[in-house]
């Protein structure tokens, strides 16, 4: 990574870590994992299942909220505070600014996910007193959740490169919901005919496929995940994030900042 991108990313990370909202969300995610223990104790035979499902869902949802609400402000906040002009007056290119911001937030989310994952595993250990071999798949589920954040961060950045923070949040959240039903959307496309089929197929391939990245239910039941799926999902998230990032760079390069 070039040093200018690295510095912008480090700065973004520092800024996000200082952000009180971020701390609150981490605390809340840990609280949710704690609540899982309580629910587990009043349930029968599904303590582990509840801890895994609730814990991973909390990690996913809080990460999504962070990715969207911090991501949409990455560009607009710099414009509002007029710090963007200071940055761009130095030998920093616009694409470097966007890329740095992306890596900064992605790094923040990676640390955030890591901390929340510790909370989930601690809760799991508390409930079952020992780890099982199949618990290793939880790491894959957490990795897939992190891939979701990478895509979502790129999308939030893409929307924030041309739209207001409020609209960017609406767009990003709507895409998250639609993307969670991406496989159903492709199913609808397969059942349509003619022009509708083409349009539905195009839409189905353009929205991010979050459903393939959500394996919480299957790992909760101890089901293994194929190596091929891990590889293809990683490749998919990487390419999709690059696509959104390229879009953001293209728009931001041409944006009139005066």
């Amino acid at each position, binding site marked *: 990574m070039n040093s200018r991108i690295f510095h912008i990313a480090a700065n973004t990370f520092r800024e996000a870590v200082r952000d009180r909202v971020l701390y609150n969300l981490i605390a809340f995610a840990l609280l949710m994992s704690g609540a899982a223990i309580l629910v587990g104790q009043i349930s029968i035979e599904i303590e582990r299942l509840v801890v895994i499902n609730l814990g991973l869902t909390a990690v996913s949802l809080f990460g999504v909220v962070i990715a969207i609400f911090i991501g949409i402000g990455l560009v607009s906040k710099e414009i509002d505070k007029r710090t963007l002009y200071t940055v761009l007056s130095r030998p920093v290119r616009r694409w470097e600014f966007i890329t740095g911001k992306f890596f900064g937030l992605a790094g923040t989310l990676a640390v955030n996910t890591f901390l929340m994952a510790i909370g989930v595993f601690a809760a799991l250990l508390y409930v079952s007193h020992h780890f099982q071999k199949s618990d290793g798949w939880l790491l894959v589920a957490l990795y897939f959740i992190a891939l979701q954040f990478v895509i979502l961060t790129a999308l939030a950045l893409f929307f924030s490169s041309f739209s207001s923070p409020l609209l960017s949040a609406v767009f990003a959240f709507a895409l998250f919901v639609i993307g969670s039903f991406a496989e159903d959307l492709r199913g609808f496309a397969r059942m349509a005919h003619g022009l509708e089929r083409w349009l539905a197929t195009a839409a189905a391939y*353009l929205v991010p496929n979050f459903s393939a990245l959500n394996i919480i239910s299957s790992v909760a039941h101890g089901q293994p995940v194929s190596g*091929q799926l891990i590889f293809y999902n990683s490749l998919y998230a990487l*390419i999709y994030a*690059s*696509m959104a990032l390229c879009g953001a*760079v*293209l728009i931001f*390069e*041409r944006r009139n900042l005066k």
Partner: protein
Amino acid sequence: MSASRRVTIVAGVLLIASVAGVILTLRLVDQNRTSATLEEVLYISSPQAVKRLSLGYDGLLADIYWTRAVQYFGSQHMMQSARYDLLAPLLDITTTLDPHLLVAYEFGSHFLAGQSPNGAGMPEKAAELVERGIRNNPNEWRLYYNLGFVYYLEMKDYAKATEAFAQGSGVPNAHPFMKILAANMAQHAGELETARMLWQTTYATTKEDLIRKNAVAHLRALKVDEDITELEKLVAAYQQQTGVNPSSFNALIGKGMLPGVPVDPDGKPYKLMADGRIELHNPDDFAFVEKGLPPGFQPKPPKF
């Protein structure tokens, strides 16, 4: 070339390459996740739990579950699978989410009742589904028709079929044919003619192309079964008269037992085998036939 222009070109090319890459990798991901969505949705197998989790958006969720049921049936049917384990739970969830989704009861009972590989081979589940549909929609005559249909054709329970048609004929705006069907059941249960009447009614009253094509396939099969039954009777009569099996249909024509070489609904001549059996020229063209198939023949799924 300015630096900004260079960035625009590189980002533009990368964007196009990424779009192609996204489509390609998504297809690879899909290949690794066959039926994964369906398996996952049934981790919550309780319809009531799904309804509560829908937060009031149960109509939309019912539509999604119905689409999943159709896709599941279609994919299993294409693979000629003998197992349709998820079909009944998917239909159960769909109709719990939206008890007035009539299409789920009508199509669902067809999917569940048909014998494998054309259906799930679960007529009891089909009857349960339609009975639940009637409880939720007591004024829909088509549901009584579907129930009678399942009892008559798939379960051969003629008494219950008669009861279903009779109850349906009393529903406001019921098709006038329901009364005729109810009366016919009592007198001619088990006859091919009654089965033909049922499929003709289905053909005439349905709005769905798939159901109509299914009815046509069944009517063609009934015609073949009827033809072959008659031809086998003639062969038996010839054998009684002469003591040997006829060598060809010409032997029957020569005796005045047949006006000409008999043909199937596609106009192709039936085959008279050396042991006196009658076979279809192209058995693959007639799904659902019970007669005229070569020994050990495995039927292909119908082409709709």
